């Protein structure tokens, strides 16, 4: 009997049938060219055995990763950082992050003893109950797709309640985000990480009592109720990680940007909780070059195109930090389909003034929303209809085109560039 069969044979018969049927459905879905099949497979399995996720998670060491931004990248980084443990690691690397996606990830890796699972913010309470995680990672909380996502103070309160009811779980949390710190504060075991907070528009006020917070650099405290930034054991400092013993090590990641360095420090803290040495974990993190098509460099029509994905104001702020300096051209692109959020109001939360004087192109299905926004910030731009028009317009100045797009706009460009089958 191999590991796979052994693990499955421990599941009740109903669960075994459910995983088999779900797996078959996923295969059919893949063959039919309808994505990777993880959601449909999971949905079918769960219909046959609603408690399947708990059964599949039992006996495994599970890490749940959540937050508004950086879930997919951090999940990939943690998976990489845990590689020195040896053996297979279950993970929902395609970003299917609700119950069906988690179920499918565990079904596909029956002999994996460790699972690193990206989890939608809203599902954290239910997924904490279902998987009894060893570690829960809380990255950040900010406004995101308000037409379908929960309001964030409410989310923070639900996280707080769920973690208070999970005493065996260790929480790895960003101490620099007041909402996250307040949510994690109810947990019995917390590893606090100074992972930084670039976007502050959602945390000027105390999550505990609502008073205006006092802030000094990354430090924050409430003058009324005494809520304050907890003392940290891990810290991101420029390009260095400072570990709990106070040792500084250069990160030197292949992935660009402050946000990814912040995600990497979180991954190192999780690896440490699994007993993986920081030096070993870091070697793995440096090998990660692209996450689900993000940061990919593509050559086309004599231009060098780099794709950056950002879905909300905090993400756009971080992404605008990452784009290459002039003479590279910047293509901004926004859609408002279901997965993007149908409401483009968030564009007014992004400060575009730093693009003044640059060669800027505007595309996507909601290019007029973006155009009016840029006009208000006095950023000159040109409207383009597709990626080839953008590449040609960029090449007139320099070969580099930096593309910043939200979710479906990003996927459309990936298809157009032949990066998706």
């Amino acid at each position, binding site marked *: 009997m191999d590991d796979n069969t052994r693990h499955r044979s421990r599941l009740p018969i109903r669960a075994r049938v459910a995983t088999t049927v779900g797996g078959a459905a996923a295969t059919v879905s893949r063959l039919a060219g309808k994505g990777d099949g993880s959601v449909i497979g999971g949905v079918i399995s769960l219909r046959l055995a609603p408690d399947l996720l708990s059964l599949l998670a039992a006996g495994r060491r599970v890490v749940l990763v959540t937050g508004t931004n950086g879930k997919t990248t951090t999940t990939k980084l943690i998976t990489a950082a845990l590689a020195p443990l040896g053996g297979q690691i279950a993970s929902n690397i395609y970003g299917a992050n609700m119950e069906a996606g988690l179920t499918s990830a565990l079904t596909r890796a029956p002999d994996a003893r460790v699972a690193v699972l990206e989890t939608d913010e809203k599902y954290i309470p239910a997924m904490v109950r279902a998987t009894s995680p060893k570690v829960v990672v809380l990255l950040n909380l900010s406004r995101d797709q308000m037409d379908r996502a929960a309001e964030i103070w409410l989310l923070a309160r639900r996280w707080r309640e769920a973690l208070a009811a999970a005493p065996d779980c260790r929480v790895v949390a960003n101490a620099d985000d007041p909402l996250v710190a307040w949510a994690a504060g109810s947990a019995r075991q917390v590893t606090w990480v100074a992972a930084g907070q670039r976007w502050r528009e959602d945390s000027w006020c105390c999550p505990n009592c609502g008073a205006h917070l006092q802030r000094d650099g990354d430090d924050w405290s409430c003058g009324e109720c005494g809520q304050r930034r907890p003392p940290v054991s891990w810290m991101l400092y420029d390009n260095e990680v400072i570990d709990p013993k106070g040792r500084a090590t250069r990160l030197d990641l292949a992935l660009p940007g402050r946000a990814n360095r912040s995600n990497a420090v979180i991954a190192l803290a999780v690896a440490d909780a699994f007993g993986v040495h920081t030096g070993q974990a870091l070697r793995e993190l440096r090998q990660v070059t692209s996450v689900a098509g993000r940061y990919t460099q593509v050559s086309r029509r004599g231009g060098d195109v780099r794709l950056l994905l950002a879905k909300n104001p905090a993400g756009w702020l971080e992404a605008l930090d990452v784009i290459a300096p002039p003479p590279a051209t910047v293509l901004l692109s926004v859609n408002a389909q279901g997965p993007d959020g149908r409401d483009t109001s968030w564009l007014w939360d992004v400060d575009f003034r730093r693009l003044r004087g640059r060669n800027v192109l505007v595309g996507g299905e909601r290019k007029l929303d973006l155009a009016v*926004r840029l006009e208000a910030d006095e950023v000159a731009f040109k409207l383009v209809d597709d990626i080839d028009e953008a590449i040609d317009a960029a090449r007139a100045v320099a070969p580099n085109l930096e593309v910043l797009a939200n979710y479906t706009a990003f996927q459309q460009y990936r298809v157009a560039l032949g990066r998706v089958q």
Partner: protein
Amino acid sequence: MSPTRPLRLTWVYPDLLSTYGDRGNALVLERRARLRGLPVEIVEVNSDQPVPRDGDIYLMGGGEDLPQTLATRRLLADGGLHEAAARGAVVFAVCAGYQMLGAEFGGADDAPVQGLGLLDIRSGRGEVRAVGEVVAEVDPRLNVGQLTGFENHQGVTRLGPNARPLARTTLGTGNGDGTEGAYQGRVLGTYLHGPALVRNPGLADLLLYWAAGPLPPLPPQAEELANRLRAERLAAVAGSPAG
């Protein structure tokens, strides 16, 4: 207002009341004033600061239940907004800010919370959340035309005899009785959330007119993109049933 003193756009409590693009309203007013040669400044007032009494247009954004209740309590204690409104300053509020202007609104767990009492409306919580595009015909005496925007709220609002509906909905929920928003004197509120003035330059100009008097027209090219966006959004929902 003396011609040399800049028009003051006072953004009330962006630290508590700024859910989704609320800055857009300040930026649109600023741009449209500046294009007409009116000096203008944006003053952001956080919830730990007194509300200046000398603003010309006060802006209030959206917010979750708890921040909405906290902001209301502080504004009642501060009194600055009331003083300004009493001497005829313009108040423009969206979503949670709109509800706050009334006599009461539904707070967390729908317990009624005392509002600012600047607009004769009462709000509570409805059965379902209203999320989506809104189109509404504005009260013809305001000369603003159609309203286009996005709503995202669970409020139901009833107007008292002193407030007039801002508009009648042809798409979307608004106040919940076929009307949308309300105004009373120079205090005006709407359920369109976030940057409501972006697609409604006529409404922005109404607020500027209330604050600064008759306005010269804008050069057409300065309005071209906003008008294209407005036309595109209205065309995109044309034929959708009223909600």
